[in-house]
């Protein structure tokens, strides 16, 4: 029996918000400082302390909701999620439960289930055998990270492959980066993704038993981890087994999947409304502040760029790679020497420049947006051939500077276009290739390639092909 299976995947993303202070206390967020230097009575969970919600975290939560097209709850409340773990100082995490800040929404082709706010756990570092307590392995708790504001974004189970999960997470990251609400760095843990994975027979509409896969701390590992789990579930089902609902851990080093918790330790979080906090009521003022802070999002940018005449493919690339889009718009606005046409410029950014700087941010390269705009303008004005313009770009990438100056000093300027210097060279080329000239005269325009090639060799590529063609036609009267 060889049934076809289809994965059904939902993602849960935890995003550390880039506020100045923690979710419920005034401690500054920590960026690798020595352990326990960013703590206070509140985030250590000392007896008698009380939380107070960070206004900017709520603001960022609303911006995320607006970006995802979610319904923003006029009133939301925090709950306590109770469980014991050393990284959880109060014995409960303050999170949101049945009245979250945002519900619903969509990003790309994936629907959003909800977005809620909560506090991050502290960091538990394995102390190794040196820190043994009564013969057992020991860990050390560092509360610097504890209490960092998190937005948890939960999707509907709309994802159908590991590759799609990766691609969608990239969209989400771009969107969040554009919002400026998080560093969204997976390796550093400011963007964390868990996946709820089940598989079902193709054509079935029922959901299979899902597992929750954790610890995929890069885009690559996300894709690999999800694929590994899909494969594990398929093998299990094909062998006549059953998927057990459990939390799994993906080890990127070995690509092995292991169970995190035994079944006996089934959790009962005993959620109840956090009595130390009051409901968050979204005022008109808070809403308009969030709306005013919204930047143009990738989807809107894509539409606008298409409206400027940029091709669909280029507009998409520029919109979803924020740094490319920003570079493009800076170049477009640079004006200066020869105004670049949007599509021509987009083409140069998306193809030539990306080919040279790769994944790097072009804004950090030595090619200034103004220099690229000028170069594209010079090409349009036929002041440099496309071939030579690419050489100029190589030089800009290597050394920076201005295109006009490079063209000047390297003698890469185009010949033709009112430049009489080209005329005698074409004359000589026709003379040297009499047979070709005859073919052209008899109507075989394809043969002109040989003449152009000759002229290019003579001019070291400075000649403009179209101009050469014009002169040949003129001289041969065709």
């Amino acid at each position, binding site marked *: 029996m060889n049934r076809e299976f289809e994965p059904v995947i939902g993602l849960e993303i935890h995003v550390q918000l880039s506020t100045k202070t923690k979710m419920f206390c005034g401690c500054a967020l920590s960026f690798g400082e020595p352990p326990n230097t960013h703590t206070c*009575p509140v985030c*250590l*969970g*000392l*007896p*008698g*302390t*009380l*939380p*107070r*919600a960070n206004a900017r975290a709520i603001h960022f939560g609303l911006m995320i909701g607006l970006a995802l097209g979610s319904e923003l709850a006029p009133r939301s409340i925090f709950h*306590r999620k*109770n469980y*014991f773990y*050393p990284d959880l*100082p*109060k*014995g*409960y995490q303050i999170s949101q439960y049945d009245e979250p800040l945002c519900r619903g929404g969509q990003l790309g082709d994936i629907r959003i289930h909800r977005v809620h706010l909560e506090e991050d756990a502290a960091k538990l570092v394995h102390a190794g055998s040196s820190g043994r*307590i*009564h*013969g*057992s392995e020991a860990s050390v*708790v560092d509360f610097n990270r504890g209490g960092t504001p998190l937005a948890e974004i939960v999707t509907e189970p709309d994802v159908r492959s590991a590759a799609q999960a990766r691609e969608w997470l990239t969209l989400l990251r771009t969107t969040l980066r554009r919002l400026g609400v998080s560093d969204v760095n997976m390796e550093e843990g400011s963007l964390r993704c868990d996946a709820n994975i089940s598989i079902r027979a193709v054509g079935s509409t029922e959901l299979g038993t899902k597992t929750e896969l954790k610890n995929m701390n890069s885009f690559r590992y996300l894709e690999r981890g999800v694929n590994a789990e899909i494969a594990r579930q398929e093998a299990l089902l094909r062998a006549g087994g059953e998927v057990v609902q459990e939390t799994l851990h993906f080890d990127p080093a070995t690509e092995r999947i292991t169970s995190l918790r035994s079944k006996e330790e089934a959790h*009962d979080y*005993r*959620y*109840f409304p956090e*009595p*130390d*906090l*009051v409901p968050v009521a979204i005022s008109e003022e808070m809403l308009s502040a969030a709306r005013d802070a919204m930047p143009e999002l990738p989807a809107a940018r894509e539409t606008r760029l298409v409206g400027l005449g940029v091709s669909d493919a280029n507009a998409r690339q520029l919109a979803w790679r924020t740094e490319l889009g920003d570079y493009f718009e800076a170049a477009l606005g640079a004006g200066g020497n020869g105004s670049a046409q949007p599509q021509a410029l987009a083409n140069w950014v998306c193809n030539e420049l990306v080919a040279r700087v790769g994944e790097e941010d072009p804004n950090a390269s030595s090619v200034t947006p103004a220099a690229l705009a000028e170069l594209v303008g010079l090409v349009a004005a036929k002041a440099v051939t496309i071939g030579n313009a690419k050489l100029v770009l190589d030089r800009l990438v290597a050394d920076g500077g201005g295109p006009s100056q490079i063209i000047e000093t390297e003698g890469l300027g185009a010949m033709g276009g009112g430049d009489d210097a080209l005329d005698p060279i074409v004359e000589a080329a026709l003379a040297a290739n009499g047979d070709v000239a005859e073919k052209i005269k008899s109507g075989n325009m394809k043969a002109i390639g040989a003449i152009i090639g000759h002229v290019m060799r003579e001019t070291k590529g400075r000649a403009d092909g179209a101009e050469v063609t014009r002169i040949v036609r003129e001289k041969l009267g065709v």
Partner: protein
Amino acid sequence: MTEARNTFSELTAMTACTAVEAIERGDISAAEVFEAYRVAAAADDLNAYLWVAEEAPPAAPAGAALAGVPLAVKDLFCTEGVPSQAGSKIIEGYRPPYTASVVARLAAAGAPLLGKTNQDEFAMGSSNENSAFGPVLNPWDRARVPGGSSGGSAAAVAAGSAPWALGTDTGGSIRQPAALCGIVGLKPTYGTISRYGMIAFASSLDQAGPLTRDVSDAALLLAHMVGKDERDCTSVGFPGVIERPTATTLAGVRLGVPEELTGDGIGMEPGVLAAFNATLALAEELGASVETCHLPHATHALSAYYVLAPAEASSNLARYDGVRYGARVEDGSLVGMYTKTRSQGFGAEVKRRIMLGTYSLSSGYYDAYYGSAQRVRTKIAEDFRAAFEGFDFIVTPTSPSVAFELGAKTADPLSMYLSDYCTVPMSLAGIPAISIPNGLSEGLPTGFQLAGPAFSENRILDAAFALEQAIGFDASGARTPA
């Protein structure tokens, strides 16, 4: 050295208001008042104190409203560098790095810390027998309990080793010990006083309040406790100021006596009821009208309370895990360490309530217990709102019984819980209520409880003051002769 102008007994015999005035006049000094109380507190033999200041604090700022009259503070208020143990072995000797907002506020107003008072562990109890540091004895009869959970504060004030004290009330923990010790105890409107730095029992019910010798002292202390605190987002402050009570009559005051809290079947002692009825007659003489009223859901208040408070407590007490502070019992594994630490660190009553609360929040039981209890709470608040349309105050005996003997109820948790029958409804509704000494029954104090709508503290204090003057309670039975 010149002869002392005042003996200790003269100084500690003054009410706090009298002492403040005497210091302001220059008749006595804040330093000698502090020292008199420090000596009295150090000599306490009721086990009312868990810590007593060893030296006088820096002088109160000139013109400070409370003039340097010292304050006894229930153990569960965090005080920087001073043991704050909430009566529990699990944080025995714990010295917090910060001070509770209300304690800091009072110190700034000129009431320095005299000592930390004994209490039921994590404020869970009505007899003070649940303290990890031994029970407090009732100064009226040392074979009896002082009530709880603020039993140390009540006993210290009654015995005269503190001029006044801070307590906390979750379901009656200020009012009931005040009644059993023959002093004044006031539970303010929820939210008027910051909870920041109060070691939590049940967050949505816990409220700090004064335990004092008379109503005027309660008003003065309360005046410097209320106020919004940025550190407690459930604090709202008090609209206006708490004023010194002056009323001499109850003309036009309508008192409602809820049948549900005074009728048969709740085990009200006849002597307690008799004292209550005598005071109602006195109130009528002062011009009040007295009528029976109804709080239809009050009979379910205790049930709702014993769902809600333990549920919150089970979560509030999860932080005592042996990681960051307090006791730890190693047992190899992490879970073993947690379990051993908590099992050995918590007392029996605390464990019972953690179990009860964990159960009622657990999967499958939430709606039946927690959800229903929250709805009963809504109904009880509505009952009070309706009652206050026809009455200015609801009055009841504070406690159904006088102080009982040590050990009398420890074997039966439910009978102990019934001590709070008359005080819990007000806690659930978040409304203010005062207990004033109401004469004796079988030689032991009884309490008269007066509850009003939210933020009616000034009116409550006025009415309580008028009643207090008319009752003329003799508190000397609690004083050890100097």
